[in-house]
């Protein structure tokens, strides 16, 4: 059993509720336990660092100090929200890099009876933990209903692969982490070159023209690549693309209807959980019908992927030039 400390972040309690519900559902099949840190506070998103430096880092560091006090047996601190993950990781990193910042933040923490030594807590993102600690073999073994026939665009967003203060990513612009996980669930992953482009963050609130244009690029590209839904790891990306798609359509006179779900929701469905139990249907642009339709359309392939039915291979065309054929083992990843 892999055990971690867990920082949910404010979105998981509200607009990103389906992320929390689906995460809770997939923990047992993955052999993971998450211990929520006690009485955590908001990380300040990208807002506090834009206003004032010391209070912004002190607010983040209160969570790190709490986590350090609760840490047992080298547990790391896992965050599912990209912005929370980055804030926690950055605070730890910069406090170690800048002694002056460290001194100011710890002086402030002292006013609340807390202290944090940078480097005490390792901060990690949920996706990276699933890929590196749990492993794709375990994920594959837990799949009961492969998502065969479901064409998805893997949308990782910016703050998980970048700036990557801990050097966890070899590729910051086209990483295939989410692709590999979704393929392990049996889904068909389309080539989506905008996978780490920005959803605009708070721009839908402060500069809507810019924010909606960024959403348009992401959604229209996913559609052009024939994905039927987008998959994300971040509550901010989810709400921007989901809830602001209507306003974006009105602005650009388009008719996009692209559902976006969390990767944990698709894991839940593939692990045999009821879609409703993992929060499918809470989207503003509904994903339940798309999901049901795609899964129904390919029963034969689903059986093949599950290893029940033999794979059907098209007969080679005798008039065609001889082409090298990929071994089955190489098709994976």
């Amino acid at each position, binding site marked *: 059993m892999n055990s971690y400390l867990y920082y949910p972040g404010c979105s998981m309690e509200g*607009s990103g509720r389906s992320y929390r519900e689906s995460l809770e559902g997939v923990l047992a099949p993955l052999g993971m336990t998450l211990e929520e840190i006690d009485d955590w506070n908001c990380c300040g998103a990208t807002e*506090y660092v834009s206003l004032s430096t*010391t209070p912004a880092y002190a607010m983040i560091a209160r969570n790190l100090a709490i986590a350090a006090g609760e840490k047992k047996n080298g547990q790391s601190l896992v965050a599912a929200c990209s912005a929370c993950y980055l804030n926690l990781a950055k605070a730890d990193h910069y406090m170690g890099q800048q002694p002056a*910042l460290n001194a*100011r933040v710890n002086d*402030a923490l002292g006013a609340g009876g807390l202290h944090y030594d940078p480097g005490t807590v390792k901060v990690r993102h949920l996706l990276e933990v699933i890929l590196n600690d749990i492993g794709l073999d375990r994920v594959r073994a837990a799949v009961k209903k492969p998502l065969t026939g479901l064409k998805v665009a893997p949308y990782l967003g*910016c703050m998980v692969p970048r700036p990557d203060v801990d050097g966890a990513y070899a590729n910051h612009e086209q990483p295939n982490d989410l692709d590999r996980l979704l393929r392990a669930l049996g889904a068909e992953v389309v080539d989506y070159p905008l996978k780490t482009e920005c959803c605009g963050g708070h721009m839908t609130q402060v500069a809507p023209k810019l924010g909606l244009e960024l959403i348009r690029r992401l959604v229209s590209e996913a559609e052009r690549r024939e994905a039927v839904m987008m998959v994300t790891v971040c509550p901010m990306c989810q709400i921007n693309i989901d809830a602001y798609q209507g306003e974006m359509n009105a602005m650009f006179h388009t008719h996009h209807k692209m559902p976006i779900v969390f990767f944990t929701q698709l894991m839940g469905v593939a692990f045999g959980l009821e879609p409703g139990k993992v929060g499918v249907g809470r989207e503003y642009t509904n994903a339940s019908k798309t999901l049901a339709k795609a899964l129904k359309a390919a029963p034969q392939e689903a059986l093949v992927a599950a290893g029940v039915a033999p794979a059907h291979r098209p007969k080679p065309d005798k008039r065609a030039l001889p082409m090298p054929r990929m071994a089955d083992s190489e098709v994976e990843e």
Partner: protein
Amino acid sequence: MVVAQVSPPEVADAGARFLAEVNSKTAGVSHLDMCIQCGSCGGSCPSASAMDHTPRGLFALIRAGKRDEVIRSNTPWMCLSCYHCVVRCPQEIAITDVMYAIKVIAEKEHTYPNNVGPDFAGVFIGQARRFGRSWEIGLTARHYLHHFILRLPGMTPMAFGLFRHGRIGILPHRIQGRKQLQAILRRADELERAR
């Protein structure tokens, strides 16, 4: 005869002073003095078209000591914090954090080009300091009423939809350690003012 063109000493001084100020306000190590003006940042930036100066241009202005022009620029406020420029910068400049540093200076001196961004951040943080958590519905309702009243008719069905799907709570969640958090932040405010 070719005479080397160098900046007059007063420009160089102003540049060095402002560069040092920005460096000291940056949370991590900025490496801003290493900028080679290659423009990878602006070329990678998804919001460059909405900026009055590209990041590269802004860094040139910093080193030329054009403090006023820099802290009145909309460039840092259009930064998305997507870190595309940061991973591409050959000099490993912490560009996003430099943008935050400029925003912090502009916020302190009220030189931001318009108040939508600073106000959103201010209300967000005001609520987070009070409750210990962000309060999505309170923040958005207040923000739209103040700044985008014309977007409200379009937003109402969306807010209702989110509410119907159980994705928005009405009341803010309050953490237990609010007093502790506020004591920490008051001390942090004092330390920030003394910098």
